[in-house]
């Protein structure tokens, strides 16, 4: 646990100095502006919750994938992978802690997004169920870290997956019900989207902003946790496998 905390703190320091973070945290409020402008123009200010939440989830997803995408390969090119593997620390725990730091930082975009709705659009998005919101953000950040750690391993095992890195954004924004609710998606896509933790996160976050009482709060939080834990387990297994392979072949790349 202390390893997790220290690795988290380290990555937080590193991420706050990274241009990727700046990029994501600068673009998130711009998306909010776009979505707010559209909803206002359509006279649908009731959609403000979407306009505020979509950029938050987008930055959560994209920053996590950007960082996770080259966490392992960057350690390798920096020459720290071997030294890190030579320490007694559990490498999967270190990876998970570091990605969690990134996802936690990206939840800052919620504040940005909320402020942009308030000024210049003058829409105060009320948080009707603050505890639900908080729990949902925390669990989503953890689930995102689990998913991203699996991605970081995938990129190493299948270098071609890296070329698809950018394609991992919009399809998931859709499946995750970030831009439009899952219920608007074609019937056949819905079961699939239920396997993506983001779809649970985005629904529940919107519920947290809406005055109606939140139904099935615990099962919905549990769905996020379970899908996140599954990502975590897969990521941990894959990273362990990668390390075993590096130790026997002496190289990360598949030959």
């Amino acid at each position, binding site marked *: 646990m202390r390893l997790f905390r220290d690795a988290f703190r380290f990555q937080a320091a590193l991420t706050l100095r*990274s241009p990727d973070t700046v990029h994501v945290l600068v673009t998130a409020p711009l998306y909010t502006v776009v979505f707010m402008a559209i909803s206002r123009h359509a006279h649908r200010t009731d959609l403000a919750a979407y306009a505020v939440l979509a950029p938050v989830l987008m930055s959560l997803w994209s920053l996590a994938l950007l960082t996770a995408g080259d966490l392992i390969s960057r350690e390798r090119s920096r*020459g720290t992978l071997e030294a890190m593997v030579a320490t007694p620390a559990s490498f999967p725990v270190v990876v998970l802690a570091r990605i969690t730091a990134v996802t936690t930082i990206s939840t800052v975009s919620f504040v940005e997004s909320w402020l942009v709705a308030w000024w210049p659009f003058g829409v105060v998005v009320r948080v009707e169920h603050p505890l639900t919101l908080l729990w949902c953000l925390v669990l989503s950040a953890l689930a995102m870290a689990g998913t991203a750690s699996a991605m970081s391993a995938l990129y190493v095992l299948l270098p071609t997956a890296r070329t698809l890195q950018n394609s991992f954004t919009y399809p998931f924004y859709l499946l995750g019900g970030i831009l439009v609710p899952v219920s608007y998606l074609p019937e056949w896509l819905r079961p699939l989207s239920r396997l993506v933790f983001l779809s649970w996160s985005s629904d529940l976050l919107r519920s947290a902003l809406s005055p109606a009482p939140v139904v099935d709060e615990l099962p919905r939080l549990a769905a996020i946790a379970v899908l996140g834990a599954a990502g975590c387990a897969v990521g941990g297994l894959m990273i362990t496998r990668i390390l075993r392979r590096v*130790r026997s072949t002496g190289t990360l790349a598949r030959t």
Partner: protein
Amino acid sequence: MTDAVETRSLRRTFPARAGRGGGEIVALGGVDLSIPSGSVRGLLGPNGAGKTTLCKILSTVLLPSSGTASVLGHDVRHETLAVKRSIGVVFGGDRGLYGRLTPRQNLQLWGALYDLHGRALSRRVDELLERVGLSGRARDRVDGFSRGMKQRLHLARGLISDPRVLILDEPTSGMDPVAVRDFRGLIGELTAEGRTLLLTTHDMAEAEAVCDEVTLIDNGVLLATDTPARLAARLSTLERVEADGVADDVLAGLSALSGVSKAHRETGGRVVVHTTTPAATSEVLALLVSAGVTALRTVRPSLEEVYLHVIGDRGMLVSP
């Protein structure tokens, strides 16, 4: 004294890269190495000799293909965690650091990876920064550091777990002379504390300056192990004679002797005679003395010459 590091018939191969046909690259071909506890061992060899491969196996990040290796009695293959806890590793180069962070932040991460946390970690980090002379720069970004400073930070990183055995892979590459001198001082301190050091290098002067014993390695094979002085002495065949005031006809006579491999006059007039046997050296000395030459001396080869001789001329193998 027990051995801190021990390898038996240690072999490591890599599949040959595509394009070079089948077969395999033998990075280490059955290495037997013993490093006594508390000593500084140099591993000296050209690029591609297998030095880094050996360091990686000892630090458990690479598996042996066959044979065994152990650190403080712990097998690198099976007792991985125990080995990891007893060694510190510094892989050379100026990579391996987080440039956007401060040296303190860098060291804090590595300490946490060795299960140091909280105040114990802060204390250890301060102590090490002081020790490698980076206290004054503790709050600056590592990006702006010179290579020598980065190298010292590397060394601090290797020491973070207070390891009994320290493996340094080309630690001084890229250091300026002042940094190298400080580095040597630090090596002295570390051995005074009873640590065992394995230090790879292709710099002869360095091996000669800091190592108790030096092992020559080439093509994955250990060629010889001895103290720098005795390694040189073992190659007494390599002795040479230097003399001033030698006439040309005497020089011609020297060249004609059977045990003389080379006799030439340097700019400045000094004659240097390379001999291949101790008997030849005596003959050369006798001839010079009878020719009335009094300014003469025999010169032991430096480690550098031994190295060039053993590794540069593979036809003449030294029996280990």
